[in-house]
């Protein structure tokens, strides 16, 4: 549809939706099956011995297959966070929300997720609560779909 924008220029507005369907493969499948049982799995690289979370079929550094599945804790330490307080396309939940990197106990990599379960409108409270090394634990949803959002968020302990 033709429109005139605020600069007075003629614009053609269109939209379309393009469908994709991606194969999960065995690693994502097993990782998210674990979520249904409230378990978080990593894999151990046979060479560098790092426990990689989320679980995956190979170690990118050593370029070796990983076949040892290891359950890691659903709690750990906050490595970094950011507080979002504006709306944007593709956001995981209504703002304000906190996305964070969390080093789960037993893992050698950080996991991305949300931190919540307390008042996020007070920035001072947030910075006090989430100081370096703050501990958080997963809050699981009751209804699970076998996806990353089966964890509602991580909550400070």
């Amino acid at each position, binding site marked *: 549809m033709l429109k005139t924008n605020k600069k007075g220029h003629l614009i*053609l507005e*269109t939209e379309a939706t*393009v*469908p*994709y*369907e*991606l*194969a*999960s*493969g*065995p*690693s*994502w499948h097993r990782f998210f099956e674990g979520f249904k049982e409230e378990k978080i799995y990593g894999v151990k690289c046979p060479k560098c011995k790092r426990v990689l979370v989320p679980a*995956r*079929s*190979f170690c*990118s*550094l*050593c*370029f070796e297959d990983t076949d040892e599945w290891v359950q890691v804790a659903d709690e750990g330490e906050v490595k970094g966070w950011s507080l979002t307080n504006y709306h944007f396309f593709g956001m995981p939940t209504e703002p304000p929300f906190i996305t964070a990197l969390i080093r789960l106990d037993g893992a050698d990599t950080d996991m991305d997720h949300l931190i919540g379960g307390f008042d996020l409108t007070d920035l001072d409270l947030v910075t006090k609560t989430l100081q370096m090394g703050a501990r958080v634990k997963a809050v699981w949803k009751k209804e699970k779909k076998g996806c990353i959002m089966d964890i509602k968020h991580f909550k400070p302990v």
Partner: protein
Amino acid sequence: MLEKVGIVEVAQLPGPETSDYYLDQLYRICKEVLDKAGITREDVGTVVSGASDIFHGGVSCANAYFWDSGAGELKNGSRNDGESLTALFYGAMRVASGHYDTALVFGICKGSENPATDMCTHFYTDPLYQRQIGLNETFAAGLQMRDYLERYDVTEEQCAKVVVKNLGNALRNPYAHVKKRVSVEDVMSSKRIMDPLKAMECAPQSDGIVAMLLASEKTSMKLTKKPVWLTGFGSSLDKFFLGDRDLLKSELSTAAKQAYDMAGIADPKKELDLAEVSEPYAFQELLWCEYLGLCGPGEGGKMIDSGATQIKGDLPVNPSGGVLAMNPYISRGLYRAAEVALQIKGEAGERQVDREVKKGLAHGTQGFGGQFHAVAVLEG
């Protein structure tokens, strides 16, 4: 080019859809090629991929997504978007400049996860004119085929023979996606989806990951008994609007000339032992052969009639089954090069052609009626 560059080994994924995860598949193919060459990821100098973004994969900046699977962790590398044959040449330039001793090159496209190719190619159009008329590559191919039939006296049956030949060849290729014995009548009676173009004359939508290890002359000789040298490369871009072009004049001639000049080929028909061309629509194999100088202008039809392009012919074209048998849209050009390399190495298994293969040609194309072409010459 300053230095000679060799293809040491190749590895490829079979075309049919599977339940495997994209990144696992890429990792395994890259691992396979490194294992074949007897080197580790650490030994890899640089990585160049051929892949496309969102429309052909559902992820933007796809190179970020597959970087680790493609052996890229902490490597200097790059990604060429569009036709993957350009990635082969880019990898070769990185070696030829003396900066790297080895380069891992791969092409990746997973058709089974994507929307229909016609939808992807529809987004090549400009939003203001051709998009509003619904143009896509199949639409453009229908117009181009009519032009070819009318002006060059090529027959629909001759075009159909390309399908018979290529799907038949594919029966010997374990990596091909579609393989079957079909007759000219089968093709002729398949649905005319874009008359005169028929459904069976259009390539499928395949999964395809192909990887190659390139190396300098010295290292190539060390890593393999039979290196394949990349001796020529050319590419060219045509005008955009279909209505501005003569659909029977192609920039493929320009691309081919560049590649032949670089490889020192004066008479491609005589000097080449085989060709793997990208023919997403059957008639294009005939048309492309003309521009590649594998037959005279307007002689594409006669050429297929003569049997010369059959697997046992004088100049086999698409002994692998070509794109009609295996169409991972973005990586198909690199697949062509991999197949030529295997033929030169004598490792093409049941699809190995009868004659000795010293020089072969690989071709890739994308865009409406072949708006972009790339040509590579490989030698033993």
